């Protein structure tokens, strides 16, 4: 072995060791700051982690774009969805009077809320865009109660990190981190464009997360679970989306 190649070898070894150590420190820091998404494993983990980490670093206090009343789309598209369950149809026949939103997990006061109760809380509206991962979009006025208010009523425990939300459709559930859950534009939406939220658009109760794409805005919400560990839910990937091949983070 010549001197040159030995020096090269030592040098590249030192560079590799520094790189690995740096990566280790970086991952540790990223975990501490909540920059690692639940679907960080597997072949798509790098891109997904970079997307989510960039989002967390760039947009903690940013607001989704809001529009003028004149920019509201003439028809809010009700896209295709799985057939409604019998349970849903029964509740629909009763005018959703018996619809309940259960709140449990890491909260001081677990409970179940009727739509009437939710509507008695501070009512907020936002004119924002719903964009689907397929490419289409519309703008509507969404009315509801900020999720942060419901979480305040239930009293979240200090160690809570995520809110998992479930649709009445058993195959549809998702989760957001506390930063998104407490964001002022994150609503439990029950109204659209001045009326009740139609079933096609997710009524009677839909999660509205305007800084993320449509599929994060789960329709027909019946349950919220506050947690510090997404591994306990489903396959541990944070939502039904990664189980179906889609990214957990849907901000892009």
């Amino acid at each position, binding site marked *: 072995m010549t001197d040159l190649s030995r020096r090269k070898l030592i040098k590249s070894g030192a560079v590799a060791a520094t790189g690995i150590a740096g990566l280790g420190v970086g991952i540790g820091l990223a975990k501490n700051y909540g920059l690692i998404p639940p679907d960080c494993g597997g072949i798509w983990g790098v891109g997904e982690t970079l997307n989510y980490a960039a989002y967390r670093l*760039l947009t903690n206090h940013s607001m*989704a774009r809001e529009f003028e009343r004149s920019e509201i789309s003439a028809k809010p598209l009700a896209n295709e969805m799985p057939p409604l369950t019998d349970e849903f149809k029964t509740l629909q026949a009763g005018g959703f009077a018996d619809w309940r939103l259960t709140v449990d997990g890491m909260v001081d006061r677990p409970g179940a809320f009727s739509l009437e109760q939710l509507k008695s809380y501070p009512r907020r509206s936002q004119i924002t865009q719903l964009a689907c991962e397929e490419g289409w979009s519309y703008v509507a006025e969404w009315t509801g109660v900020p999720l942060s208010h419901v979480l305040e009523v239930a009293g979240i425990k200090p160690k809570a990190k995520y809110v998992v939300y479930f649709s009445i459709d058993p195959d549809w559930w998702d989760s957001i981190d506390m930063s998104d859950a407490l964001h002022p534009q994150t609503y439990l939406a029950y109204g659209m464009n001045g009326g009740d939220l139609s079933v096609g658009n997710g009524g009677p109760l839909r999660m509205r997360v305007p800084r993320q794409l449509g599929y994060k805005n789960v329709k027909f919400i019946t349950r919220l679970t506050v947690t510090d560990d997404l591994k306990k839910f489903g396959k541990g990937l944070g939502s039904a989306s990664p189980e179906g091949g889609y990214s957990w983070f849907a901000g892009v």
Partner: protein
Amino acid sequence: MGETQSVPQKPAPEAGALSRSANRLLRHTALVRTTHWITASAFLALLVSGIEIVISHPRFYWGENGNVLTPVLFKLPIPSSRSLVPTGYGYVLPDQNGWSRYLHFQSAWLAVLTGFVYVAAGFLSGHFRKNLLPRAEDVSWRALGSSIAGHLRFVQPDAADAGSYNLLQRLTYLFVIFALGPLVIWTGLAMSPAFTSAFPASVTLLGGRQSARTIHFFVAVSLLLFLLVHVGMVWFAGFRSRMRAMITGRIDGPVEDA
């Protein structure tokens, strides 16, 4: 060490320059070769995943909003992977958006980070100034005209030019690197509701989300056209020689060619 043995051990006069050593020329530096192939792989992944994503909604709009209830700017005459979209075909393709979206963003990070390295190194090493900026004697309509005419007549590249790029080639590369590249990144980010919440001007300047999507599509088509012409020109100029140059960096000089 095989490569260094076949080439005379003579340091390049200027780092990054296309330098001449005996009858073997250094056509591409290691940095250019590495970033070239990483970018090429990432672009192919972006292309395939981008096509799959477009198939889920092969309709284009202008302005802020668009969906199957609104008029289109144009639509692609292809079937769709969503039953929601009226295409005129009697079938719906299987949904490929899950992995396509994961792959699209992962490759986008790879392409963008590689692009940053390439552009930073290109400025620092003088690569842009020496190899891509038109030579002083070529800054004229006449030189441009003769370069275009040469390409149209399919004149074989001069062997003496094996160590450098011709005028049209330089202008095209500069356009891809400094116009199409940034534009495809910008219009891509302008479709992200998370990104636009932090930087709303990124989408309002383009006229809205659907305009951003439509521009993104046309820039991608332009990049695909560039790829096809680029590969065609490599074929025409000598596929083996040009491929070897982009892999090993070396190309046969005028002496061997003659």
